[in-house]
């Protein structure tokens, strides 16, 4: 085996024992370009054909704004709900041994696999005013199906596995000794959870949140069945895009898509920055 002598001067990357950096990077870039960059730049390209004034008119249209607000708002609320209950589910799965644990564990993945339309129809049936759950809520004046609340319910369903599956492995890695150390120092169970365990899990929880959120923003199949799709009230942005497409109004569709792309990108960027900051600090 020979080792190539290190070249003097500036290097893009330190030489590594693993060969094939050039090849794998080249492949990764080509792949990303093909799968992600070309379609996205096509999107920008088409919406750019619109011209700035038209673009602005579509972007600030009441219906577009409402749709975006509902999409991002519902996704945010759903991701927040999932963070709480997903972490709880992960906790139960990691910390306790009970009969049927593996079945519950497998069940968490169902929203990944189930066609979203099936999920949407099932949820609508349950939460409709005459459904199993809906008829219990109706006397209380709570309407779930055909309202923004229904959208949240659908997105909670879709997003749950993202939180559970990101938090679970980190939770399994928590060192029992750290908890014991806290206990010997006098911390009670509540203090151990809030001051020791939770901060350790925070990066994973943020990742789970951003994944569930991103999934929620883009979700279409399950939402359109339960949302009722009333313009200005319970119409999500992806649906509005489809409506514009059906009207052959391609520029408007791509304009809304471009706005969604931009907003999603910004939010994910912020979340990623927050994460790399915390990683740098806590190592």
């Amino acid at each position, binding site marked *: 085996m020979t080792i190539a002598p290190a070249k003097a001067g500036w290097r893009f990357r330190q030489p590594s024992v693993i060969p094939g950096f050039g090849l794998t990077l080249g492949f990764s870039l080509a792949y990303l370009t093909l799968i992600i960059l070309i379609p996205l730049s096509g999107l920008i390209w088409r919406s750019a054909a619109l011209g700035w004034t038209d673009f602005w008119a579509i972007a600030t249209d009441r219906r577009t704004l409402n749709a975006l607000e509902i999409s991002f708002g519902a996704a945010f609320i759903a991701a927040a709900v999932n963070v709480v209950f997903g972490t709880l589910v992960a906790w139960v799965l990691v910390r306790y041994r009970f009969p049927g644990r593996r079945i519950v564990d497998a069940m968490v993945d169902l929203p990944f696999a189930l066609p979203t339309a099936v999920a949407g129809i099932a949820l609508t049936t349950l939460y409709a005013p005459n459904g199993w759950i809906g008829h219990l809520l109706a006397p209380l004046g709570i309407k779930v199906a055909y309202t923004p609340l229904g959208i949240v319910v659908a997105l909670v369903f879709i997003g749950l596995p993202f939180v559970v599956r990101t938090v679970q492995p980190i939770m399994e890695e928590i*060192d029992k*000794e*750290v908890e*014991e*150390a*806290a*206990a*010997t*120092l*006098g*911390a*009670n169970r509540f*203090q151990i959870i809030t*001051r*020791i365990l939770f*901060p*350790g899990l*925070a990066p994973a929880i943020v990742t789970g949140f951003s994944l569930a959120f991103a999934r929620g923003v883009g979700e279409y199949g399950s939402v359109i069945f339960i949302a009722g799709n009333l313009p200005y009230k319970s119409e999500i942005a992806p649906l509005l895009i489809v409506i514009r497409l059906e009207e052959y109004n391609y520029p408007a569709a791509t304009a809304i898509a471009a706005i969604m792309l931009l907003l999603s990108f910004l939010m994910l960027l912020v979340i990623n920055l927050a994460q790399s900051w915390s990683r740098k*600090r*806590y*190592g």
Partner: protein
Amino acid sequence: MEVRVANVRKEFDRFPALHDVSLDIKSGELIALLGPSGSGKTTLLRLIAGLERPTRGKIFFGDDDASQKSIQERNVGFVFQHYALFRHMTVADNIGFGLKVRHGPSRPPAAEIRRRASELLDLVQLSGLEKRYPAQLSGGQRQRVALARAMAIEPKVLLLDEPFGALDAQVRRELRRWLREIHDRTGHTTVFVTHDQEEALELADRVVVMSQGRIEQVGSADEIYDTPNSPFVYSFIGESSTLPVKVEDGQVWIADRPIGLSAPHAPSGEAVLYFRPHDVELLDGCSGCIAGTVAASRRVAGTRRVELEIGGERQRVEIELPVDHPAAQKSRVAFRPRRWKLFPAA
């Protein structure tokens, strides 16, 4: 604070980890629990801390029955082998944690906590590292922080579980001396677990030798080394050589020859002779000695280790000679142990 372990038994899933262990630890003492892995030393330490509950028996802190108290109430400082620092907190926050989680009037004000943390950092010689995170410290530094954190709550006892086990030899020796200094200065009753006999003998006031869930012997380094009370302690602490022998008429025999050792109080019959390989007297002639042919000779640091084959059964035994001793060149060596002990044959 005195600690008394009274007839404690601990079972894990019906498998006994400790059988009926009793131990008195004096106030201000530095005591080592020494034994091979699986001897129950860590279990005993965790029982004292309250991290485990005894199946039977009690543990007293002074006159208080601590076995009824939770970990939080026991007020012990525990140091783990792998530090168990809180990664998301600075060094100062780690040390102050035990004070911050207190309730009501026992909780000192924030400025006082900060002052205590920097005082303890001075004590463990890490002044100026308050703002660092554990990930930014070396192993030795982390363990010092862990010790400072344990001492911050003014514990009744300080318990250390293989505190230097994860560190390299150099740092380990350094920290060993340093821990002794800290102990002499602060006077905490301290119990530490180790499987390193050198560490135990050098550092502790008294050493507790454990094996298979039982205490074999408790004593000072001298007592443990010079008068081991069981075959296990003899072979576990320091080097030892053994020979199967026979006792008759108060004399020790190998095969059909007396070896010049008298054991007037030993019962007649089969026995095993234990001695230290370096603690032997070399003899020229052989009337009443152990003689054997040299089977192997190895240079080990400052001495020469010679392996002898004794008698017709070619029993192998090891002794140590000075490097330049002429006997090492011979093919036949005769010797007699200076200090030795007989244990009944197993």
